[in-house]
Every structure is written in structure tokens, then in C-alpha cells.
């Protein structure tokens, strides 16, 4: 059976169970819902929260290098620690945390395939113990910008006709969905997508048990049907850059794309920018089938995530 290009970044629940007490390994849980960790976590795992721990609380950006070093020291992570991420929601937030760790150049990061769901399905025990990691020393390099795309770079990338993959739901991509009736718009002033971006909803990359699809299925999805190329510079984005960090992980590590970046500003930046190109509709170029009544009705009941 064909293998992922970098199979070493994925570990099984069995591997985690065996290594949970290994001093060279730190298990990190990252969730949509923080109370899940309190309800029960993998024995010995610490929780790193994407909003409270990884993001700057004043500027819209990640914590700075000093903040990242402090975070690692507090959670018992050294430069040579193997950090294994897992979480709820098919590892969305685990991939997001993984990406931030790569942004600060942490060498050995892995994902526990299947996350909380797979751990549960495998009948493994949860712990409610408080985890008190020993302080470590940690020195982080400057950000590795090869994994991150900023707005102006995305604009250049788009103008050059390079590959963009929009991983939001089809309704968000086409511009049908922007905000709910009765509610203030939570994110963007304009709906639609970046011209040229192909739409591959992130959820197509994972199986029902939360694990990643096989390399064959992923190749079909990304390189055959969506015609993305392993050697072409590619940028992934979603609404706030979290669903696309899962797609970034899939493209870079499972399929071996040599140059793929996550645009973390994503639609909550692009859809508010003055003067950037936006198209509506189901096609990358913006050409589309007309929005029928049935589509509009579907959009109004579809549970597309709004705060993610």
C-alpha cells in the first residue's frame, strides 16, 4: 500500500499510550472546546489553547518569539522534545497548534492520527489528573516564514496565477453564506472567494473516525480532481486559518508538497480588505451556476461554522 510521503509525523493512539510517560515526549491537547480537556485527557497530556495560549491577546497575530519560548518552558517542552498534538474536531486545532510550532521552527512535531475520537474508539482511558510539567529551557528561532503567507504575498501569488486552495464549505466559497439573519456579521464584509482558488472543503481529508484518508484518496482529491501540483507553490486558507492548517498538514506531510503555506489571515482578512479581488460563485474564476432557490434554502439551514 502506498505510504504518506512523511509518515513519521503521524503516530497512532497505541504509540501515544506507550510513550505518554517518556520524558522525551510531550503530549499536547488542543481543542475547540476547552472543557473537554478538563473532562478527561490522555494521561500526562498538557493543554495548549489556540486562542488563549497561541494568539496575542491584543494584536491579531500569534504570540511573539519570547511568548513562544515561555509557553514551551511552562509546558515542559525542550528544543529536542517530541511534541505530539491531538484534539477534538478531527484534529483541527491540533493541526493549528502543530503549524504554530512549525512557525517557530520546533523540529519534532507529530499528530496523533484520529485525535480524541480515535482514542475513545480504541477504548483507551482518560485522565482528570492535573499535569505539572517540569520547567524547561527553550530557545526559539525567528518565525519560519516559509509556512506562513501574509496578505500582500497572497495578492502577489494570486496575480501570478499560482495555486490557491480554499478549504471552507461550498456555501462560504460561493459567497452565499456570509452572516445569519438577525445576527451581526461575525467575520467579513464581502462574501465569495479569491479568484483562481479551488474549493476543497477540509472535511474531505478525514475519515469518520477522525483519521486521515489514505494517500490514494488524498491524491485523488488534491492532485487529480483539483489539479494541485506537488512542486507548485500553493497557499491554503479558510476563514481564520485553522481548518486550512489541517489541509496544509495534509499537503505538506502526507502528500509531500514542497512549497505550501497557510494564509492565516484567511477570509476574515481578505473579505474585509479594500481593493482586493473577490469573485462569487462555484467556479474558481467566479463563473457559476445561478444561485437557485434550493441552494439558498440549503444555505439557510446548513450548519456551516461561523466562528471558525
Amino acid at each position: 500500500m502506498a505510504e504518506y510521503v512523511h509518515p513519521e509525523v503521524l503516530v497512532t493512539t497505541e504509540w501515544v499510550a506507550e510513550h505518554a510517560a517518556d520524558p522525551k515526549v510531550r503530549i499536547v491537547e488542543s481543542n475547540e472546546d476547552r472543557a473537554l480537556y478538563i473532562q478527561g485527557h490522555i494521561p500526562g497530556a498538557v493543554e495548549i489553547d489556540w486562542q488563549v495560549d497561541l494568539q496575542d491577546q491584543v494584536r491579531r497575530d500569534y504570540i511573539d518569539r519570547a511568548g513562544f519560548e515561555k509557553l514551551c518552558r511552562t509546558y515542559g517542552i525542550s528544543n529536542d522534545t517530541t511534541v505530539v498534538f491531538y484534539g477534538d474536531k478531527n484534529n483541527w486545532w491540533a493541526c493549528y497548534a502543530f503549524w504554530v510550532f512549525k512557525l517557530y521552527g520546533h523540529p519534532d512535531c507529530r499528530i496523533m492520527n484520529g485525535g480524541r475520537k480515535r482514542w475513545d474508539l480504541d477504548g483507551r482511558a482518560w485522565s482528570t489528573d492535573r499535569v505539572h510539567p517540569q520547567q524547561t529551557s527553550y530557545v526559539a528561532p525567528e518565525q519560519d516564514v516559509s509556512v506562513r503567507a501574509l496578505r500582500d504575498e497572497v495578492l502577489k501569488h494570486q496575480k501570478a496565477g499560482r495555486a490557491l486552495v480554499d478549504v471552507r464549505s461550498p456555501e462560504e466559497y460561493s459567497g452565499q453564506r456570509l452572516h445569519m439573519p438577525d445576527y451581526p456579521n461575525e467575520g467579513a464584509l464581502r462574501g465569495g472567494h479569491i479568484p483562481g482558488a479551488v474549493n476543497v472543503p477540509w472535511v474531505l481529508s478525514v475519515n469518520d473516525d477522525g483519521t486521515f484518508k489514505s494517500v490514494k484518496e488524498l491524491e485523488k482529491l488534491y492532485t487529480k480532481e483539483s489539479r494541485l501540483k506537488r512542486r507548485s507553490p500553493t497557499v491554503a486558507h479558510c476563514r481564520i486559518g485553522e481548518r486550512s492548517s489541517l489541509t496544509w498538514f495534509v499537503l505538506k506531510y502526507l502528500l509531500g508538497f514542497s512549497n505550501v503555506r497557510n494564509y492565516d489571515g484567511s477570509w476574515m482578512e481578505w473579505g474585509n480588505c479594500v481593493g482586493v479581488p473577490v469573485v462569487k460563485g462555484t467556479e474558481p474564476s467566479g463563473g457559476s451556476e445561478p444561485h437557485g432557490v434550493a441552494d439558498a434554502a440549503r444555505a439557510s439551514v446548513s450548519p456551516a461554522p461561523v466562528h471558525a
Partner: protein
Amino acid sequence: MHDAPRMTSVETRLNSIISEFADLDGREKLELLLDFANRLPPLSATYLERKAIEDRRVHECQTPVFLWPEVTAGRARLVAEVAPEAPTVKGFVALLAEAIEDQPAAEAEALPDDLLERMGLAEVLGILRTRGLRSIVGHVKRGITRQFNAQP
């Protein structure tokens, strides 16, 4: 000496809940929220039937949340179902339900929007989650108002 303005019964309940949360650290606050989540009763057969035919899902929540803000004889009540994978949302909804249960509808309509800040939960949950939960407060208040206005 001036008389303090009389607090409504919903305010009294909320203040007692807020003071329960006040001195706890982040982890303990989430533990207390889990206690609320565990107290949310499952839907009765009547509401399970209604769930199948009524559009009660709160669409701006990622996880399945179904709410029935109701008014009977001028008294408010919140019936709810929240998916177990969202215990924070479940706990907060349960807390709102306990606060307004059988209280005058006009008081339930006045639920404060800054509850999470006053409980000290906003900094534990972060900006986006706080915003999501706050929209649930708005949803409940609007539902109560609609029901209240529809009363004979």
C-alpha cells in the same frame, strides 16, 4: 442612607452564580461549568418530537445546539439540547436555563450580555468563543421576547 435598587430574582440568581465563579482559577471555572452541563436534563419525549419537526438549531454554533426559549403564563423557561462534544456550550446554556427557570419573562428578557466577562470566563475562553456564547444569550432573549409578545 439610600435604599439599594431592588434586584430582580433573575439578577439575584445570576449574582450568586457569578460569585461562585469569581474566585476560581481558569481550570476550576471550567470544572464548575461542567457541573452545570451535567445538570442539563435530557429532552423529554415531547421536545424530542418537536426537535424532529421544528427548526430549533442555533445555526451560528458549530456544534449542534437546540433551544426552546418559552413563556408560559408570563414565566420564562429554557429547554435545550447541546451535543456532548461541546461541554462548554452545554454548561453555559444550562446556567442560563437555571437562571431564568420559572422567572418573570420580562426579567429573562433583560439577561445581561456581559455575563461571561463578569464570571471571568471571557479570558479563559478567548475572544471568539466568548462572542459565540454571547450570541446564545441574544438568541434566548429574542426568543423570550417573541414568545412574550405572542401571549394572549
